[in-house]
């Protein structure tokens, strides 16, 4: 007796094929229709954003935290000038890139067959999600997440992919988990993408 996972209506053949990240970036629908700006890798495979930052010259978010402010989410065009940052840990194999504008952090990830993004838990409610999806495809090949990084924050976000299952049914599985925490006494925010 085995319990079947969720049974959906999307057929196996409709799952999007893997996309090259370059082509995805070229056509990715940006927040509010903006073009994609320069992005930095978030330090894939490195144990510690601080060490990686020293090697690359890219600012480690943990070592240079944003000012304590409360500003609105950047408009689409503002992200073009956003500064690439390194996260405390990134195990996305270069599939995710992070940048910072004021106290807002944006993480863009590319992966095949992305189905959903959601907050599992957050100490503050603000978070903005977008899926990059061609009109001909049932699933997305990119996802963008933006949220403010403020002292006291704790947040867990899950990015999900559609997976094939029994007889054309599909399920969902975790592609990435984004974790943010910045406790009083920390040098800076600890953000990881796993």
């Amino acid at each position, binding site marked *: 007796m085995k319990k079947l996972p969720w049974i*959906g209506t999307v057929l196996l053949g409709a799952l999007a094929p893997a996309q090259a990240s370059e082509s995805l970036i070229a056509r990715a629908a940006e927040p509010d229709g903006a073009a994609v700006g320069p992005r930095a890798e978030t330090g894939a495979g*490195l144990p510690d954003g601080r060490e990686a930052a020293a090697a690359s010259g890219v600012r480690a978010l943990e070592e240079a935290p944003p000012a304590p402010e409360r500003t609105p989410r950047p408009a689409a065009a503002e992200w073009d000038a956003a500064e690439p940052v390194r996260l405390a840990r990134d195990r996305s194999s270069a599939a995710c890139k992070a940048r910072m504008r004021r106290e807002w952090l944006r993480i863009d990830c590319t992966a095949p067959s992305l189905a959903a993004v959601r907050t599992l*838990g957050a100490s503050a409610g603000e978070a903005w999600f977008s899926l990059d999806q061609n009109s001909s495809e049932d699933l997305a090949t990119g996802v963008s997440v933006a949220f403010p990084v403020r002292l006291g924050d704790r947040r867990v976000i899950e990015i999900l992919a559609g997976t094939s299952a029994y007889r054309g049914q599909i399920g969902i599985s975790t592609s990435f988990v984004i974790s943010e925490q910045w406790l009083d006494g920390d040098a800076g925010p600890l953000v990881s993408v796993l």
Partner: protein
Amino acid sequence: MRAPQDDALYLADEDHRALRRIPLPVDVSAPPIAIAMPGRPAQVLAIEGRVLVTIRDPGLLLVMQPDPTAGLVEVARVPLPADAWGLAITPDERTALVTSAWTGKVSAVDLATATKSWSIDVPREPRGVVVREDGAAAYITHLTSAALTRIDLRSPPQARPIALSPSPYRAPPDEPRAASLGYAAALSPDGRRLFVARHALGAIGELSWFGAASVDVLVTGNDEPLAPRRREAAPSRLARDFELDIAGDQELEAPRSELAPFVQPRALVYRESTRTLLVASEGTDALVELDALSVEPTLRPLHTYPLGSSPALAGAAPGSLDALSRDAGVATLCGAPSGVALSGDESLAWVYCRSTDTLALVRLDEHKAGVPYEPGPVPFIRLAKPPLPEQAAIGRKLFYNATDWITSGGLGCAGCHPDGRDDGHVWHEVSGGDFANFFGSADNRPMAGLAGGVARQTPMLAGRVSAEGPYGWNAQSELLAARILEGFGLHRWGMGGGADGALSLRASYLASFLREGLVPPPREDRPLTPEEKHGFALFTSEAAQCSRCHVPETEYTDRTGYPMPGLVARPGFYREKKGTVYKTPSLRFIAGTAPYYHDGSARTLEALVEQNEDRMGRTSHMSRKDKAALVAFLRTL
């Protein structure tokens, strides 16, 4: 435990009643030094010039000193409440704190005078203990509850519970899960985060009859969980045209990552250089590395180091322990990892593998770009021969093992019966035409339309399985091996398969271990107090009739099934089938096995006697003093 001078590794080998000293660097060809202990050692801690060891029975803290000839010599012996287990010292190294598991105590020992300063009561099965950086308080983990205990280390010491829900995103909002197997905790180097490894009972997920593995984080600044609460209607975005109806489907609302990257967490250490955690996964014979920077470290493990078995040797003799282990699907190299220590540079982990009596030397991933981790053979030291005859020795491996699908269904016997005791949990059992399954919470439904299930509390095994039979809450299994066979089907979703011969062989191995290998909890050898004597007189009286069924000569049970009229189904559980009978449970060690009844409806012995309503024997005629005396006697069993 590595010595501060980096010259030796110390290992508490409970099953051989020995402390082992392994000179560093480890020479795999040289046997370690074994130092006999006055009882079973549980944990060891090496500090400057001294080695501290907890002894379970009799309860002791041994203070030892390195010695060039003997390895270690005893310099002091501090009597403590029985089943001394967990061990930590205050930052000034003046005080040792010791948990006593079975007796539910935490004690402080003044190391300068080698005397006990105090002992206080805490909830059931205290195990792990860590002391805050400021020395102001200690945190205690428990095998049978989710809440931690915080002890403020002032005079007098004060204990209070600290809520820490296990695996919070695998539970509905405002319905925290229960937890078990809280053996271990570790502080971050700055002391501001406390990591606790355990098992989330009834956690929601696909095929999660047993729950989920969890490392939960407490912020020590305010004693609040690090993970923010799961909230209804949290932000989400779905792919266009993806008709996914997540809302209201608890399985889909739970994280879709692996439920059990580790099984039966037995030890936990913080690896400072990589800001990661290493968990000894008893059930899967692995060391698992997690991100200590994550709010929920268990959701995405960084690395799994499989340790269980080396490639099969062509020359393994038929009938040898190695060959029999392979046939039974259990570890040959490192089974039931239960202790971890790091080398000074943290490039290496030494892992004590209890069920194979080995020490594995695990080279760790550096987690650096451009430095790929190349897995290779794991060197190991054979510490000792198995402490049991061959059948029981393989049963010992099976008892801890969660990878042999025929036997375990994803959780080993030790997952619900830690130390052969119980997890304090009331499970849900559902049955249909040709199946029966256990699951941890009413939310975990093995199939549509099934929910609730009847209530079945985990029974303790140690010291209660010497009789031929019958076994099971309903006395349904004639023999112990038959009950174990039934368990192979119950404790899972779906049968694990396996030919009758393979199943029977495993059941017989396990039965041998349960009888020969499990160690009963300690009992005080002392005369009864006047109150207890009065309780004994009541227990054996014709008026009360307790001893008619709870026969003293046969572990306080007649092993016969009786109906239990008037017990109503607890919320969340099914009503029992008409005519169900319940085997008289053994009362041996009953003081330490709350809650009571098959459905766990009595939280204490006092409540059980008070609410008996002459259902079992007769107690309604007793005065309050009599009932207290009866409970006092029951606690001595």
